[in-house]
């Protein structure tokens, strides 16, 4: 459970550090602070949708951290036999990096109001992601024809489980991407989709990070 | 006002209940008096807090009850008071924790010279293994478990040969000697508990767990499974007998070793045929059973079950209740089979007899019986053929006999002897059948299997 605990410790430490600054020296019953000093504002100057996404990312991180904890604990038991990662995964990783990069360019285009560039990079990002997912399926195919079935060994089972979980999260992102793309293709202006594009970009970067972490773990064990 | 009185009465009532209650720890039978001490200490500390907080609250409610025109005091906080309360609480908590951790350290560290006993759990039965003369257990593997090797001992491991196997839910332990229990499960989680010993631990399949204690009081105590292990969880009982060291050693010597069991020749049906002559008088020459004499069918029955019941008759675990007329007839008959070899031979001979399904004589609501049988199927198998290492066959045997035995179990004519743990289990199960009709229904359903 160490991984899960480290993750939680980081979250808690961040939250606590921030709360201490917010609360330690206030005397809330002292009502004399003029109201102008207490503006109605969120704790961070960003859009609630982004806060929502960041919270969701914290939840997903908790999920992966717990899976990794389970992975590490299960790995220590006697019957663990690591499986050979298909080389295809390197190519998939490169494609996912491309996707993430394309989303970054989409976001840049959106903030600068460049509709055409945004449209192109948005499409590139989506296509790369689809290719990545397809590549993951092919990798599964290679492994199962190579005799590495899910029931064969917990290492295999974890491989399928973790890649599937990561893929499902990407698929969820693709749903939002699809809706955004549909709006962009039907001519919505940059301003109205900018938030969606920004959220997608953050999410894709995050999932790239998760994938790199997972891939690193799979390679090193 | 009623609330104030109620709170005070609840506090006083709780204290009275605590001191007057006849329901408290069973008398201690092990060295873990320190656990009882820690419990008592915790009672004192938590009791003081319970009384203080609630009486203070009752007083506050009385003194500061609503009065027209009265006004509460405005006091956002009182740092000094809060710090004092925190410090006091911390001290109280530390006072309870410290002895707890010290005793736990004793529990975790097993004395060097402890007598080792392995407890093996399965749904829903206890068995035990001792390391034998070499003091080492043979290696085990769940894959090796079979009817001939119930403990799954690796036959290639020489340490296993002298392992003493106790194929019964009764274990003996020596008085005033530290005993280390190794705990192992064949199937699901179980938990080895003897209330009088205070300590307990789960049996986890795939790994070995342990606990140790030193029995300090002679007597027999009940072993309970305290981790939910399926529908017969509550019927998974055993016994532990605390006795003097010499008695314990004699008991160990009387139990077979793994090598002995492996080397034992199978029963000889030819010799058994001769001994069976006396059985044939009632049970029929083909072991087909005879209703007129209340003698059930034997052919086709699980040999291990037959052996266990013959043994139970012989040593007085069955056929002793005065109302169990037929059992009382069988008991002296079983006594005529003077030793294990003869019993093995007879059972081997019964194994050669033709197994013709018995005719149905009991009617009942088959659909209802099918519902009731769901419970039975967990041990006796969905097809009523019995499950090896667990419970005997029912389908194709005499239905009138099944019915009579269900009644006997329910009424306590069978399975009431404290050492007949298989019978005790069946008693708990038979009690779930509300009436004779339910028994008929379930037997009628078994007839269809």
């Amino acid at each position, binding site marked *: *459970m160490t991984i899960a605990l480290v993750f939680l410790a980081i979250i808690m430490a961040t939250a606590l550090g921030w709360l201490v600054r917010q609360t330690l020296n206030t005397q809330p019953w002292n009502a004399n602070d003029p109201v102008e000093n207490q503006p109605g504002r969120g704790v961070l100057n960003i859009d609630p*949708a982004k806060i929502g996404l960041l919270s969701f990312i914290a939840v997903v991180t908790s999920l992966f951290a717990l899976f990794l904890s389970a992975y590490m604990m299960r790995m220590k038991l006697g019957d663990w036999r690591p499986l050979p990662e298909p080389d295809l995964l390197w190519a998939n990783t490169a494609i996912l990096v491309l996707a993430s990069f394309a989303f970054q360019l989409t976001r840049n285009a959106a903030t600068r109001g460049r509709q055409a560039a945004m449209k192109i990079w948005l499409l590139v990002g989506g296509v790369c992601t689809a290719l990545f997912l397809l590549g993951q399926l092919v990798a599964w195919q290679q492994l199962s024809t190579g005799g590495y079935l899910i029931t064969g060994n917990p290492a295999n089972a974890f491989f399928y489980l973790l890649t599937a979980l990561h893929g499902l999260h990407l698929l969820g992102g693709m749903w939002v991407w699809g809706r955004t793309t549909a709006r962009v293709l039907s001519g919505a202006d940059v301003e109205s989709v900018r938030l969606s594009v920004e959220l997608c970009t953050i999410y894709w970067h995050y999932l790239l990070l998760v994938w790199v972490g997972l891939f690193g773990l799979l390679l090193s064990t | 006002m009623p609330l104030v009185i109620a709170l005070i009465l609840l506090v006083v009532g709780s204290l009275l209940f605590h001191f007057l209650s006849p*329901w408290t720890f069973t008398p201690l039978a092990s060295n873990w008096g320190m656990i009882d001490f820690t*419990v008592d200490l915790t009672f004192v500390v938590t009791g003081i807090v319970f009384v203080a907080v609630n009486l203070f609250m009752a007083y506050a409610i009385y003194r500061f009850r609503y009065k027209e025109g009265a006004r509460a005091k405005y006091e956002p906080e009182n740092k000094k008071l809060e710090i004092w309360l925190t410090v006091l609480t911390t001290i109280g908590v530390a006072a309870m924790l410290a002895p707890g951790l010290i005793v736990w350290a004793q529990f975790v560290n097993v004395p060097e010279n402890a007598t080792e006993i392995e407890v093996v759990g399965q749904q829903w039965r206890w068995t035990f293994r001792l390391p034998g003369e070499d003091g080492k257990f043979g290696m085990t593997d769940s894959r090796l478990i079979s009817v001939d090797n119930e403990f799954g001992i690796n036959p290639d491991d020489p340490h296993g040969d002298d392992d003493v196997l106790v194929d019964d839910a009764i274990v003996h332990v020596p008085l005033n000697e530290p005993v280390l229990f190794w705990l192992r499960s064949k199937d699901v989680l179980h938990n080895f508990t003897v209330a009088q010993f205070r300590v307990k631990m789960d049996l986890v399949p795939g790994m070995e767990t342990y606990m140790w204690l030193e029995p300090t009081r002679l007597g027999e105590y009940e072993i309970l499974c305290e981790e939910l292990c399926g529908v017969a969880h509550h019927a998974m009982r055993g016994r532990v007998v605390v006795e003097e060291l010499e008695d314990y050693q004699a008991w160990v010597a009387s139990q077979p070793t793994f090598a002995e069991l492996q080397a034992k020749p199978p029963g000889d049906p030819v010799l058994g045929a001769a001994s069976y002559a006396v059985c044939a008088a009632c049970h029929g020459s083909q072991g087909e059973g005879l209703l007129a004499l209340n003698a059930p069918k034997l052919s086709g029955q699980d040999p291990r079950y037959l052996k266990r019941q013959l043994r139970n008759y012989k040593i007085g675990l069955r056929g002793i209740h005065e109302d169990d007329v037929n059992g009382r007839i069988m008991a002296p008959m079983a006594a005529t089979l003077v030793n294990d070899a003869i019993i093995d031979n007879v059972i081997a001979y019964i194994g050669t007899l033709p197994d013709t399904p018995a005719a149905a004589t009991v009617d009942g609501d088959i659909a209802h019986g099918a519902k009731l049988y769901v419970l039975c199927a967990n041990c006796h198998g969905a097809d009523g053929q019995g499950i090896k290492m667990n419970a005997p066959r029912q389908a194709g045997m005499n239905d009138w006999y099944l019915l009579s035995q269900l009644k006997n179990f329910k009424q306590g004519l069978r399975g009431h002897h404290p050492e007949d743990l298989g019978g005790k289990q069946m008693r708990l199960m038979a009690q779930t059948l509300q009436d004779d009709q339910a028994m008929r229904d379930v037997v009628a359903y078994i007839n269809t299997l």
Partner: protein
Amino acid sequence: MAYVAIADRDHEIEHHDPTTFITKYVWSQDHKVIAIQYGVTAMFVGLIALCLSAMMRLQLGFPNSFSFITPADYYQFITMHGMIMVIFLLTALFLGGFGNYLIPLMIGSRDMVFPYMNMLSFWVYLVSVIVLLASFFVPGGPTGAGWTLYPPQAILPGTPGTDWGIILMLVSLALFIVAFTMGGLNYVTTILQARTRGMTLMRMPLSLWGIFMATILGLLAFPALFVSAVMMTLDKVAGTSFFMPAIMSMGENLSHEGGSPILFQHLFWFFGHPEVYIVALPAFGLVSDLLSTHARKNIFGYRMMVWAIIAIGGLSFIVWAHHMYVSGMNPYFGFFFATTTLIIAVPTAIKVYNWVLTLWQGNIRLTVPMLFAIGFIFTFTHGGLTGIFLGNVVVDLPLSDTYFVVAHFHMVMGVSPIMVVFGSIYHWYPKITGRMFNETLGKWHFWLTFLGTYAIYLPMHYLGFLGVPRRYFAMGDTEFMPESAFVLNQGITISALFVGLVQLLFLYNIIVSLKKGKPAGPNPWNATTLEWQTPDTPPKHGNWGDELPVVHRWAYDYSVPGYHDDFIPQNVPADATPATSEHGSDT
């Protein structure tokens, strides 16, 4: 474009009031309607779970007298009772119900930040409830593995419901987690980003702190349940060996190999212990507000209370293995977890002291909500103190898996949060419905429930000391149980059935008062928090009419010296002189 806070954007945001019955009451995105939908659904399944407990008690008090309770049924009842009460009633009611209703009203917001997701949250929750209840109607019935669902037993024959029941249970839990996550993200984001002007975090009522922290715990802890549910489903359906070692079942060797049942327990309790506080923290928060309001006194040590909530929330993640002292895990863990567990007693004790000190020098009105709040302090103190027994690792040895545990967690996690649930429903009923409940019936409800539950659980602890194991279908003739213990069991059963029936009073009261109750007015308790200052009662869609309220003070200005009234609502400006201070809504 610079960021503009929600409260400052109020005039730009268009509020579309729903017009049709369907959009208003069924596919509603209004947090108040969703709260009621959550609340009613949760109470409905809670009633089912209550009936299940009545059946269990019948068997325990009068063993083998009822042909409709077989061992399989019994284990199915305990499993469903536990799971429903913990997850589908208490978690859903405190966060989905009270959280949804109170968060926007208390922080002065028009709704949740993501109303559509909030609506989805309820409907996914409803589906999870339906899936769960569907398991009563599949072959083999619901799972009987106990609410902890420990493998290997949960997915093997010998336990009821291993074909369908366990799968439906796992699917239902996964759905619940999805629903909870959607709701939880909403609660957190709303509290962080949608507070009205002047509502700093430290001016929030403790209710919100409790709900806020519980939601964070839930968001981080429920994934552990999700992980274990997914892995167990694979073990069951795909034949993997995450948790399954090489074992026998029904006399045959299974193909699993090498897995660890203890791994499941770690994951389960990594969720399971924070879950206790997911239920407890909102109760702590709500009861603080009830006590303060009805004692006409500020909550004592507000900052300490906030920090205690945070400390308990943080610590709750490093105590999980105290549920596993006798599980066969590495026994050296016992030292660590016993220590952390007893440390958590300190902030918890501080909360109890501060509640009692809030009563001290108050002007206590023994209204129905206040009675329940005091009932909470009593039962929670009792349950918390027995928790110290079980948290201390050696004391747990004799008591683990006995009725002491059952009595403890029912006291601390059953009775005491339910006291807060009742108290809070009575407290906010006038705001939710605009009418008062029947006070006399409410008092009867309190007295019978409070005394009745104590009659159930106090003796139960002592059965535990005797060594009576929990999760036993019947005790049979267990040698160490005297005849009197069986009589005691009958007494407990009678009390339990009685308390169960008494809840009809509550249902009758809240249903009949909907029509017959006296009109309550906007602020019948003279409370300070924002939800009592709405222009309409019950609040309309959008909550605040034309203007959002502005907050000028903390939530506990009761009996402030120099003011005429004994309360000053949060939206009264600081410079309002004593003579001109008014009560009621002045927005």
